[in-house]
């Protein structure tokens, strides 16, 4: 079962914190991979927040092809971050790891965010397709203020491999996953966290309802709903579909993936809507066992559980720094000086929502409504 470590804070911090958290929870992952997403970037990216960052891995030939494509598309490279690779036994270094900041093509800057996002998505998907057959180009995200890093290996060794302890790479929200490979062959596109247009998520456990969900998402007509090398990628796309595609407030994500029974819905003040939501989005119901940790474009982070089998997951911390992790021991490492009595273990009806900057923690309960536990 994968180990998950998300930290959201008001100040910039290093991804090493997440990796050490993963190390504390090491018994759960087998070193088959690690994924990192950094959002709200600091360090050398702090002054480039409105420019899209392309994160990926390329062979030399792939990078040349990527450059040709980006040039032709009108993107101008303004900054490149590459990790200082240190040889580590057991990790085979690929040619180029990068997070490259681009200027939009001419005329795009003035367009709405929607249109920019559509262009960025189209570009990412094209690049992915260009390099998919020979793995010459692997791109994880292309979005402003977001960097993604993934590789096969043990998290702590990857930390050393990428030289993250010496790096200036910092952010206010960092999601990290230590992979326990289960059903699928090791494939970097199968490594969490997943990202699409400002939304990200990672999951532990397996998704038994994967195929109907995948078929439903893939048939929405949205070009970004592809891939699915991992059964957990659908959680990110459900989040995007609900919040961006349907414009639902974030907490309805919970009602979509773990719908209530009709008798329970009848007690809700919004029962008419929730009743229709349950029917209309029936194929998106999950059956677990999954704990999902995610973030929205505004920096809100959350944790939800499936409605029955319940993977481990706990949220805790202090004002200004909250961690959402899969194991309590990870929380002790991430925010040791917190009041542990206030840790929240979300149960089947709960969705824990942490506001941007870790200012406030609220629990949305499908039956009881909102409770604020920290503000």
């Amino acid at each position, binding site marked *: *079962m994968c180990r998950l470590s998300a930290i959201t804070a008001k100040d910039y911090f290093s991804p090493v914190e997440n990796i050490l958290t993963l190390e504390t929870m090491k018994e759960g992952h087998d070193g088959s991979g690690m994924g990192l997403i950094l959002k709200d970037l600091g360090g050398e990216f702090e002054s480039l927040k409105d420019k899209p960052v392309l994160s990926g891995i390329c062979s030399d030939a792939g990078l040349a092809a990527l450059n040709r494509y980006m040039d032709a598309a009108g993107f101008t490279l303004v900054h490149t971050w590459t990790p200082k690779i240190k040889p580590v036994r057991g990790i085979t270094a690929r040619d180029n790891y990068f997070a490259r900041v681009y200027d939009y093509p001419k005329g795009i800057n003035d367009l709405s965010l929607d249109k920019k996002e559509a262009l960025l998505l189209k570009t990412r998907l094209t690049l992915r397709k260009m390099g998919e057959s020979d793995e010459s180009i692997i791109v994880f995200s292309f979005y402003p203020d977001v960097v993604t890093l993934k590789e096969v290996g043990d998290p702590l060794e990857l930390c050393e491999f990428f030289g993250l302890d010496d790096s200036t790479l910092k952010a206010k929200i960092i999601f990290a996953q230590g992979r326990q490979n289960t059903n699928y062959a090791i494939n970097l596109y199968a490594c969490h966290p997943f990202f699409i247009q400002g939304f990200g998520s990672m999951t532990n456990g397996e998704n*038994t309802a994967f195929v109907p969900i995948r078929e439903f998402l893939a048939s929405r007509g949205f070009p970004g709903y592809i891939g699915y090398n991992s059964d957990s990628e659908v959680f990110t796309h459900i989040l995007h579909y609900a919040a961006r595609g349907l414009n639902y407030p974030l907490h309805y994500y919970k009602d979509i993936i773990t719908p209530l029974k009709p008798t329970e819905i009848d007690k809700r003040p919004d029962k*008419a*809507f929730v009743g*229709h939501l349950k029917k209309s989005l*029936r*194929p998106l119901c999950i*059956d677990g*066992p999954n704990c999902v940790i995610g973030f929205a474009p505004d920096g809100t982070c959350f944790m939800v559980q499936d409605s029955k089998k319940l993977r481990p997951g706990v949220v805790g911390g202090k004002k200004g720094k909250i961690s959402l992790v899969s194991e309590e021991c990870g929380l002790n490492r991430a925010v040791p000086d917190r009041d542990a009595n206030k840790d929240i273990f979300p149960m089947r009806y709960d969705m824990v929502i942490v506001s941007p900057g870790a200012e406030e923690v609220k629990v949305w309960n499908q039956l009881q409504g909102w409770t604020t536990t920290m503000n």
Partner: protein
Amino acid sequence: MEPVARLDNNHELTLKEFPFLIKWRDDRCKRCGRCTAVCPMFSITPAVIAKRVVSSSGATPTPHVERQVVTVIKQSTNIGNYCTGCATCSLVCPNEAIEPEYNPNNKFLIHKNAAGGAYTRGGRRNDPLVSTLDRLKFTRISMLTDPALDAGRHEFRIRTYLGRILPAEELPVKFVNGSGEMDASGGKFIPPVREIYPVMIGSMSVGALSPTMWEGLAMGITYLNEVEGMPVVMCSGEGGMPLRLLKSRFVKYFIPQIASGYFGWDEIIRAIPHMVEDPCAIEIKYGQGAKPGDGGLLMAHKVLKLISEIRGVPQGVDLPSPPTHQTKYSIEEAVAKMIQSMSMAWGFRVPVYPKISGTRTAKAVLNNLVRNPFAAGLSIDGEDGGTGAAYNVSMDKMGHPIASNLRDCYLDLVKQGKQNELPLIAAGGVGKKGNLAANAAALIMLGASAVSIGKYIMQAAAGCLGDENNRCNVCNIGRCPRGITTQDPKLYRRLDVDKVAMRVVEVYKALDTELKKIFAPLGRSTELPIGMSDAISADDPAIAERLNISYVC
């Protein structure tokens, strides 16, 4: 050589031509006559024969020959009185002296066309081979990476929706302080949707079924709803419904069917103002899997007082429904109008869906319905469905198996992103070999929102004797030995209505347990695993490829 003159019965059939041969034991028979009295086909009759009997009595053998006239049971060689193998004779015999035996070398179909009449019967497609549904198994077992559920302890929601479901994009919703509210201001039509149990009892009419059988089924499903909390529903079949049921609150568990003869609909329409509840749905029958291209047929001898009242017709006349609806011009307008008319009759509060027989043109029908905002679903009845009366050739050789027909339709919906909008109901051969839960679950994983059963429930609830070796299968002649498909009070009184109802309840409770035993190891409990095709595999590569599922061996 015998002279030809001795073979004066040249055109008489030998018993070897017949599908079932009566094995009668002279030594056990006490000549009570029950078997001959009960035989629905008059295949066996008491007869007398002259017999040479050798006997001896006394201390030493003293053989003594005498000719005696004795009574025996004789099987008819008249093709019209063929033994159907129903074994009612065995059932009533006090001494186990008689039983029919299947004759695999029979030439029945070659001779069953006397007087130019093509063979008609009831029942099912006579194919005793294993169906595609029974070639499927559930192979995605949760164990370590994702824990299985406990069928006995965990809560399962085995429910489905009947009715067109609006896509989320079209739901008229507004958010006030982060809370969703339905917005009625735009007047957007939200189609009615029922939450039901995913295995429904398919259309079998009052008339085709005896009063005790139909009422037993009706009582059974009402009990399941009212007492067991299982929302099982039942389709009326063509021929209306008893008036007292139409006017009762229980009508919500029933799906009145309208078919090409419109039998019973005068009474239903007149009852609408008096209805205290809406029916569950309305089924418009355009085709039947057992006899594609044929309409319903109720023979005159089944049209007695009760049936004539319910159907609104005179007594004692044949009631053939046309093969097609006389008003049907095209699916785009006439069918759409019919769906709309039926919807309008209940103020658009009742889902209305068509039922067709399995066919290679099912996708064309489906795609028309997808574009019709009032169509509430599509029921597809495969070739293994049953019927009360049809030509043998229609039953045996016409139609399309349900598995690939359903799968094609579901994948077509997936391609269009409409798989959750128009529910598919699959029928025809579900539980053919007794594996009701497994067949139903397999169809659900192939894409069905619900399945319909007919023959299975007749066999399980009332002991229907029919099988795929053409045993019994005489539902059409009004002499059903079990009292299931007859209007003859002497026969249908054999059926205890309460026992039928009790068996319906037992069948559904057992089915529910078995479905949980299937869904639990797959890790599914909250919603029905519709289209969860990664959970099933076929033991035949061609089937696997055709259904787009995995092959295992």
